[in-house]
């Protein structure tokens, strides 16, 4: 990786719902770093979209990779700001993700009875960021998620 980030915050927390608060605190620290490091930091709505995606990705690790606490392990989150984009890299050692990254959102049901109360996670992330990638590293048994959102054009210096 030749490119150095302009800002970076890394945090590792136990992969349980009780520790999501620590991740959110790290996310807030990261936005503070972004304010200091970028000439044109993204606005509030842009950040909230990214934060929403991060919260969802973390919840997925807790819920699925660590089976809601049945499996123990850590969630490592690396938040990186570059000139043209913000990236998040999540790593966990839980069970392999075997779903479909392109899984669509639950259908808006005509009848309230049929409206699902879950299953919105991946489509939510895809709606909020530009790229979502997953890979499984078999030797180490690691799940690696990458979220990427391109910064608005004004943030990129000319030339």
């Amino acid at each position, binding site marked *: 990786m030749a490119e150095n980030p302009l800002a970076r915050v890394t945090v590792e927390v136990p992969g349980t719902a009780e520790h999501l608060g620590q991740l959110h605190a790290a996310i807030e620290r990261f936005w503070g770093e972004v304010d200091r490091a970028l000439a044109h930091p993204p606005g509030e709505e842009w950040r909230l979209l990214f934060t929403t995606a991060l919260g969802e990705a973390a*919840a997925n690790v*807790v819920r699925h990779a660590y089976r809601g606490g049945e499996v123990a392990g850590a969630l490592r989150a690396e938040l990186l700001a570059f000139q043209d984009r913000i990236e998040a890299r999540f790593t966990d050692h839980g069970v392999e993700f075997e779903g479909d990254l392109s899984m669509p*959102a639950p259908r808006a049901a005509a009848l309230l*009875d049929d409206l*699902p109360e879950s299953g919105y996670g991946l489509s939510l992330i895809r709606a909020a960021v530009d790229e979502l990638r997953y890979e499984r590293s078999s030797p180490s048994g690691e799940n690696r998620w990458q979220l990427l959102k391109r910064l608005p054009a004004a943030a990129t210096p000319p030339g």
Partner: protein
Amino acid sequence: MDISVEEREGGVAVVALSGRLDLLSAPHVKARLSEEVAAGRKKLIVDLGAVSFIDSSGLGALIGGLKAARVGGGDLRIARATEQAQIILRLTTLDRVMEPYASLDEALTGC
């Protein structure tokens, strides 16, 4: 997540939430909303003004509460959704199912 309930006339309950409405707190919120319906509070107004963050589990709890309220012959409305809450409602198109009311007064109108 703190939950405080203010019971008002006509079977209305204003449920004020404070903190993160997420994977951890969603089951408690859903259970509390169901309890209020079971206790005869048919019109639930969920005040999201102090909710710092909502994830899809949190949305699921609100949907669950809405279903319970409707089964009981009532309704659930959300009020004072923050910018983040409005974003997640819009991204999931659940804002069409639960219209976010800007104020408690507006949510209470017609209850």
